[in-house]
């Protein structure tokens, strides 16, 4: 399987990561090198060298589930600090480029 520059561009659009033409070329080379490596497990399973049948996907072991938090509203003292950190804020809102309805 070969991954094309076109597929990398589409992937970058999905992940919302801007890439220059040079980056697209380098990324394509990385994918074509790394993807076969990443496929080692499914491949070995098909070849019968790794038995994944009936094996559950790993879940981190949490023996004692955490006690749920209490439902008690606390004031938000960091509101002003959070708004101050915004790249652009106005009248208490975070500003983004105009979104057309149902975009």
């Amino acid at each position: 399987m070969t991954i094309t520059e076109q597929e990398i561009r589409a992937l970058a659009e999905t992940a919302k990561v801007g890439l220059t033409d040079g980056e697209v070329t380098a990324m394509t080379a990385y994918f074509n090198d790394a993807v076969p490596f990443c496929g080692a497990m499914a491949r070995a399973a098909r070849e019968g060298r790794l038995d994944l049948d009936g094996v559950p996907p790993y879940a981190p072991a949490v023996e004692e589930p955490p006690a749920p938090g209490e439902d008690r509203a606390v004031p938000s003292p960091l509101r002003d600090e959070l708004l101050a950190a915004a790249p652009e804020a106005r009248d208490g809102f975070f500003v983004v480029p105009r979104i057309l309805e149902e975009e």
Partner: protein
Amino acid sequence: MTVRYVPVIGLEIHVQLATESKLFCRCSADYFGKAPNAHICPGCMGLPGAMPILNGRAAELAVRAGIALSCKIRDRLYFDRKHYFYADLSKAYQISQDGRPVAEGGLLKIRSDDGTLKPVRITRLHLEEDAGKLVHSAADGRLEGAENSYADYNRGGMALAEIVSEPDLSSPGEAREYAARIRQLVRYLAVSDGDMEKGSLRVDANVSVKQVDADTGEVLAWSARAEVKNMNSLRALERALEYEIRRHREALASGERLERETRHWNEAEGVT
């Protein structure tokens, strides 16, 4: 040959849980009508390093509703991240229960159009976070200008239970009846205030219409399923479904193919 048209409707109802604080942080859940971003913290704003702490009360209310709907209740809670980029979503993912919902496989009996009792199967009930709100201009003329939209995260992270039905409803009246029963149930159990106008109970409808040979009962054709949103009263739900069903019948009758799509009810114009 006589042809019959049978609507097939399933509802997804988002119920805002009657908690004091949000689902994974302790910001106030009393957001309605508050100043923009008055109820935000590092948690619901997705700041790196802030960690989710589940609201135990929200889980309790979801389980209560699940029991009332005769669902099987899972003995542990599992959460997943649902990723999408949008300005109302502060972490670029919504914490939801995709694979393993808290409650599954329930039943709610409703009064059908002919007066008989009809069981409606409940697929699942799961917990999830709400998204924030985007505004495009303020009523008093502030925030004017064509180039910006504005994000308010007060609602972001609010505790929701999503109740999904099987497509067992076959008329706008039944859909309305089902939604009214859900609303009554969550109110009675103090799970939610169920206020549709304030958006604390939101109904999305999945609707398609099947064309059936009235004599043999053979299904001749299906219209592509449409998801209809933005109905903020039971009356609006009924009207939107009437409109949508008519649209599907006409398409089936004329042989036009519909696309599978999401449509929004426009209350003023009475169209989707």
